[in-house]
Each structure stands twice: as C-alpha cells, then as structure tokens.
C-alpha cells in the first residue's frame, strides 16, 4: 500500500468483538487509518461493518485487541476515550437526531464534549453558536437552523448529521451507511458533500457502504469485510470490479454463511 501521508491516526490491533449472544461480529481485525484518507468499508449485511465503525469510538467495546488513538493512547482509558470521541464525528444511518429539537440545537450537540455538565445546561457561548451556523452553511441548511428536525426530508436530516459531526471539528468522521435510506440523487449529494468537506479540511473518513459503485467512485481506499474478517484492504485505484464483487460472491457460495448465527442457539 502506498499512502502519500503515512501518519496513522487510529490503529486497530487484533480486534475481536463477540456479542453477549455469542455472535462473533469481528475476528482479529487489524487496520490503520491515515490522516486525510477517505476509506470505505464494503460488505454485505451482517458482515460486521457497523460493529467495526462502532469499535473505532468504542460505542461497542472490543472483547479482545486494542484500539489506539494516535497521540492519546488506548481507548480503554476513559479520559483518552472522551478526548478521542470529542475529535471523532459520527454520522449514523438513521441520523440519530432529536426529532423535536431544532436543527441548530442538534448541531450544537456536537460541542457537548467541550463543556462541563453545569455549563452545558445554559446556552453555549455565542462563538459556539456561530460555529454551529457555519457548519450548517457548509451543508446548505443555514436557512433551516430554527426548524424542528422532524420537518426535514431524509437527505436534509443526513446533512444535519454531517453538520453535527463537523461542529466537533473532528480529525476523523465515522459514517455508518450514511446513504442507506436515501434515493440515488440524495446519496450522491451526501457522499460528494462529505468527501469535499473531508478533503478540504484534512479530515479522515471511514464510511460503511454496501454499494460497490459508490465505494469505487468516492473512496481512496476500500476495506472488504466478510463474516467479521478483513478480506482485502487496498487503494481503490488498485482494485478491479471483479475484486470488489468477490466479497459478495464469497458470501453467497459459502455454506457456513449463517454458522455464526446458528452457533448461538
């Protein structure tokens, strides 16, 4: 692999995730994320994409192995974890917004990590509100700042999610199937917006997708995940369509596809 800028910001080392019900969602996953990279995790449903992304900010904790944030340390440490989360934006498939709150209130949630509990009970300083507005400007929603979220369309909600992540001034953005519930036009809009912002701000991104074409069009690097294991991890330019489709083919001809699920019962 050749990376222009070889500075890793997050390192996963031999990470296993076994859910309490016995499902082995990730098996010895080791990978590095580099500064400024736009990386897509590709895999079919149940491959472990969400688990992988959630492990990177410990919304799901690994049962073995470590996640290390460069310059901070291992995420096991609660103080390290909080600092890491502060600088790691997360965009969710279902946007995870507070529906009745306004767009601005939701974006300001991205700033919570920077304030104490008591301070956060009062309106945040004007500079923070201006920051939130500027993030909304970048996703083209500044005119909706005072609109309750439940009045927005799916694509607009996803852009609020992006603005919330941007408000964190992140060095890494995790996005779990950010376009899964969007039509193709909104999907392209959201992906190119995300890529442009990340590229201009030097933010690394780790996205999960299940559409090969989108992955090929937008990513610098693709990680193929199948049954909780990394099948390939390479620069997009070096991967052919046949390579990419392999992870789906492997799945469909593999007789043990459901073995992990069945072993739990």
């Amino acid at each position: 692999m050749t990376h222009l800028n070889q500075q890793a910001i997050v390192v996963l080392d031999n990470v296993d995730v076994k859910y309490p019900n016995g499902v082995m969602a990730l098996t010895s996953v080791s990978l590095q994320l580099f500064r400024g990279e736009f990386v897509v995790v590709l895999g079919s449903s149940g491959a472990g994409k969400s688990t992988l992304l959630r492990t990177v900010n410990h919304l799901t904790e690994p049962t073995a192995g470590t996640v290390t944030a460069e310059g901070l340390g291992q995420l096991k440490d609660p103080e390290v974890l909080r600092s890491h989360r502060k600088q790691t934006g997360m965009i969710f498939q279902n946007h995870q917004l507070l529906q009745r709150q306004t767009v601005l209130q939701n974006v300001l949630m991205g700033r919570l990590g920077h304030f104490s509990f008591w301070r956060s009970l009062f309106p945040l300083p004007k500079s923070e509100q201006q920051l939130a507005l500027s993030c909304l400007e970048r996703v083209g929603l500044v005119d909706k700042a005072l609109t309750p979220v439940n009045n927005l369309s799916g694509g607009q909600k996803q852009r609020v999610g992006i603005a919330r992540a941007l408000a964190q001034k992140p060095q890494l953005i995790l996005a779990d199937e950010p376009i899964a519930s969007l039509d193709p036009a909104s999907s392209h809009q959201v992906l190119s917006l995300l890529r442009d912002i990340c590229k201009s701000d030097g933010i690394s991104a780790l996205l999960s997708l299940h559409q090969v074409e989108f992955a090929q069009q937008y990513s610098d690097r693709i990680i193929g995940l199948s049954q909780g294991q990394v099948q390939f991890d390479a620069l997009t330019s070096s991967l052919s369509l046949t390579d990419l489709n392999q992870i789906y083919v492997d799945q469909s001809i593999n007789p043990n596809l459901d073995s992990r699920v069945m072993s739990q019962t």
Partner: protein
Amino acid sequence: MIDSTTVSIEGESQESLLRQYQRGWTQQLLRFLLLGVIVFISFILVELLNVERMAEGIPAIVKLLSEMLPPDFSRFPQWLLPIVDTLAMSVAGTSIAVGLSLPLCFLAARNTTPHPALFHGARTLLNVARAIPELILGMILVAAVGFGKLPGSLALGLHSVGMIGKFFAEAIELSDRAPVEAARSVGATELQVIAHSILPQVFPQMADVVFYRWEYNFRASMVLGAVGAGGIGLEIISALRILQYQQVSALLIVVLVMVSLVDGLSNRLRQGFIK
C-alpha cells in the same frame, strides 16, 4: 376426491369446534354469576339492601338537601384566604413530588440506573409512596408536625412521588436510544447524555403528568383540609360540624368553580409545553 376428504375432516373438526365454543360460553356465564354473587354480598354488607334503613335514609337525604338551599355566601370574604391556601398546598405538594421524582426516576428507569440494586430500591420506594393514601400520610404528618398547610403539602408531595416518579421512569425507558448514542459519540458525559438527549425527549410527557397531577392534588388538598391541613376543606368540615348546610352548599359551589378553573388552566399550560 379431494372434496370428499375435506368435507369429512371438516365434519369432525366442526364437532370439536362447536364443543369448544359451547364450553367457552358456559365458562363466561359462570364468571358473570360469580361476579354477581360477590356484588350481591357486598350490597348486603353495606346495608344497601336493608329496606328499613333505606326507607329512613332516603327521605333524610332529601331533607338535608333541601336544608342546603339556598346557598349562603355571606362568609365568602373569609373563604378567600383558605382558597389561596388550598391552591398553594396543591402547587407546593406537586413541586415537592417533582423535586423528589427527578433524581429518583433516573434510578428507577432500567436504561439509566447506575446499578440494579438502586433500581430495585427506587422502584420499591415509589411503590410504597403510591400505596399509602395521602389522607393517611396527612394524619401521620399532622400528628408529627402539628396542624397546618405544611403537613398537607408534605403529604401530597410524598404520595404524588409514587405516581409522578413511576411515570417519569416509564417515559425514560420508552425514550429513543438513537440520540443517546449520538451524544455518547461526541464525548458527552453520562450526566450530559441524560440532560441533552433523554430529557428533551421525555419533557412533554413529564409536563403532561405533572399538570394532571396538579389537578388531582388540588382536589386532594381539599380532602386533606378535613384532617387538619387547613384550606377550604377545613371550612367545609367546620360548616358541617355546626350544621350550617347552606354554607356547605355555597362552599361546594366555590369548590366546583375552582376545580373547573384549575382544570382549564392546567390544560392550557399543558398544551403550551407539549407542542
């Protein structure tokens, strides 16, 4: 061929279906009969079926009602302060309940409790509070701290915690997990998660319960007056004791108007919070 077999199977299963239906009907009838017997026994025990007592009682009630008319509002100015007292008791009692419920409900909700032991402790506390009627609590507190609005408010507050805390906890348990994850993911502390992603979701339900409870507490505070907690309830009891039935009816009219006003105001405020 296929037809003949289906018919024969149907003939058999029809029999058993009808038998089951018949049995279900008989069981239902027995249940109603049992209920009827219980109601009948209760009527006998409370002397509703005692012809002699009813024959004396009904005319006495009619006579008392006639003595209540016309309502006598001459003491109305002296009732103003007790009305304010009763209102104050209901507001203070409800506020005490909210103040105690806010910390308790997070312990009593499965998704926010820090420890299972605290969860069970908090739930038990809420159940006990709900189980003791405010009238009993009022009598105990009057015995402890003496007559007045203070024991009345405390009794309302302590009893209301049971219901308000339980509803708060249930609203929290039903809240959407998604925004909670979002808050965690930006590095919010557990307290911030509660304040910024759970509270905004449950606030409308909380406001709804609180205003409903305030209406209830306003009526309950009049009853509490009867056991020495003061307010308009005490006025009613005093008027009854000195057989001033015309004042009693005037007081009941005042109460009716006040209850309607409180209900209306509470509805207004509730709507303001919910939208």
